[in-house]
């Protein structure tokens, strides 16, 4: 097991470096002057050159990348051009809110998905299966930012039950676990949960159907095992794959939250990314993308290791 973990960690290193390179290049393929956000329109040539040197934009690209990577390893992602504050601190504060949202959505989406998937797989080709599958297809097909709008229309505009935007009373940015804050979480979390719900339902349904059609299930039943016992075998066999899919979905929720955070003005990493893009705040853009991508890489690593821990076939292969 330790050897497996070591091998997987070694494999992650080149990925991390390539991810950093992609983040770096992304910002440097950007057309236009990277300083356009801070430079006044009538700035003199000298001032522009001075600022360019201050941000290091005057050096050759490989040098810039090396320096950026070195500083990033020490936790220094530069300062936001728009606010002047350190990028790392800004991103980490926002990521906290995104993690809150993703975990709430994961609890809803995964529970619903596992339940619907098990039921659909068990009652395959019946009307129950059809209803559960329709839910799943609707979940993966719905433009989630639109669903967010529709939920706001129903529960905030028409019924006035829940707040429409924000993450706390009076535009508060810090999170707390009380109803005053929780009511702000309900709609964004439900909206975020529909895609993982659909994908987990589909996965678990397919797995359940496959496992139930295998010979060993027949043998278990022939032996006289009760249906609940058979079900335990189904869950045991489906767990590794289902876990991998859920891990990936959690990563997507963390990294792909920008649309939902924009709809609900949720002060998370996606919201930060949005403002970085429109203020053309390149250090902030670069840092946010890098940290979100690294989160995703490490989450995948964790999922792989967890999968190997519960499924002995993987680390042998």
């Amino acid at each position, binding site marked *: 097991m330790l050897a497996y973990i070591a091998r997987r960690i070694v494999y992650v290193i*080149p*990925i991390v470096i*390539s*991810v950093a390179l*992609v*983040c770096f290049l*992304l*910002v440097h*393929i*950007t*057309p*236009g002057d990277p300083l356009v956000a801070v430079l006044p329109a009538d700035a003199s040539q000298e001032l522009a050159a001075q600022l360019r040197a201050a941000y290091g934009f005057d050096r050759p690209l490989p040098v810039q990348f090396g320096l950026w990577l070195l500083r990033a390893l020490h936790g220094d992602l530069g300062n936001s051009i728009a606010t002047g504050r350190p990028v790392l601190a800004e991103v980490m504060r926002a990521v906290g809110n995104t993690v809150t949202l993703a975990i709430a959505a994961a609890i809803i989406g995964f529970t619903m998905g596992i339940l619907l998937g098990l039921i659909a797989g068990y009652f395959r080709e019946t009307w129950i299966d059809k209803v559960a599958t329709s839910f799943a*297809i*609707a979940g*993966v*097909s*719905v*433009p*989630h*930012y*639109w*669903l967010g*709008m*529709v939920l*706001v*229309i129903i529960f905030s*505009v*028409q019924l006035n039950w829940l707040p429409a935007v924000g993450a706390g009373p009076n535009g508060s940015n810090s999170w707390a676990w009380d109803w005053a804050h929780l009511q702000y979480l309900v709609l964004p979390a439900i909206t975020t949960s529909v895609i993982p719900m659909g994908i987990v339902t589909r996965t678990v349904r*397919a797995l359940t159907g496959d496992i139930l059609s295998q010979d060993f299930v027949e043998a278990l039943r022939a032996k006289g095992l009760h249906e609940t016992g058979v079900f335990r075998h189904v869950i045991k066999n489906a767990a590794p794959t289902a876990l991998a899919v859920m891990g990936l979905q959690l*990563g*997507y929720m*963390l*990294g*792909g939250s*920008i*649309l939902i955070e*924009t*709809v609900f003005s949720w002060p998370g990493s996606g919201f930060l*990314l*949005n403002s*970085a*893009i*429109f203020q053309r705040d390149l250090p902030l*853009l670069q840092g946010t*993308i890098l940290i*979100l*991508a690294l989160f*995703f*890489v490490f989450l*995948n690593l964790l999922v792989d290791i967890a999968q190997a821990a519960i499924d002995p076939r993987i680390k042998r292969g």
Partner: protein
Amino acid sequence: MSELPLSATADAALQAAPATKARGYWATVGRRITRDKVSMACALVLILIFLSAILAPWLGLEDPYKGSMIRRLRHIGTVGYPLGTDELGRDMLARLIYGGRLSLVIGILPVILAFCIGTSLGLIAGYVGGKLNTAIMRTIDVFYAFPSVLLAIAISGALGAGILNSIVSLTVVFVPQITRVAESVTTGVRNMDFVEAARASGAGPFTIMRVHILGNVLGAIFVYATSLISVSMILAAGLSFLGLGTKPPEPEWGLMLNTLRTAIYVNPWVAALPGAMIFAVSICFNLLSDGLRSAMDIRN
């Protein structure tokens, strides 16, 4: 001399045999899918949306660009404006139908481009193998380290707003996914006996790839690509929704959803209409792709 006609018929029969068999498979697929009620209903809805988008100028609709301050945000069912008007007083029905033109193009084109690029890359990686395979597939792995929404937004955000940039960024998102599928099916086929036989009879690598491999892997890659259209529609409209795709006053569903967001307190259901169009197209493509998959008997 008397033998000649006979051998000629035999030859003709031999040559015709694989052709009829190939047609047989696609005929079976066609028959299965036309019997599937859900797939046919989805196909019908999509054809209607496509046709109305193409024929929009000849449908006798209002001008989708012409607004009026005195008839802003009319409700659904207003006389003359069956689906109401938007925040600038433009006819919603016309804008939704015209909006299909851009929305469908920016949603579907990235998948078509990625299908061409990804299939070529995957075919080459899978067939040639060795170092080239490693080089292509490891590069692909890097893109897998980004959640797809983040990658699309990062590229679009870096390149700046615009239709072309949004198409480019979505293509970049889908190429790795299609390449992976193409590589894995190609690797599965390339060691089969008929490929070996073709190689033994002197066919070059290009001929083998084009004639023997492509025909056997294209179906699976195509079905996979169709399943991406729904995601692509949602993401393309999403980029416009964020202000990274289409620019006003162009009618496009994602952008319309964005500009109507402020109207949800005044006229909520008109504001929700463009999203319903995206949803309809997306779910129809998803169901059609599922139907095609089971008709072609492909398992994921």
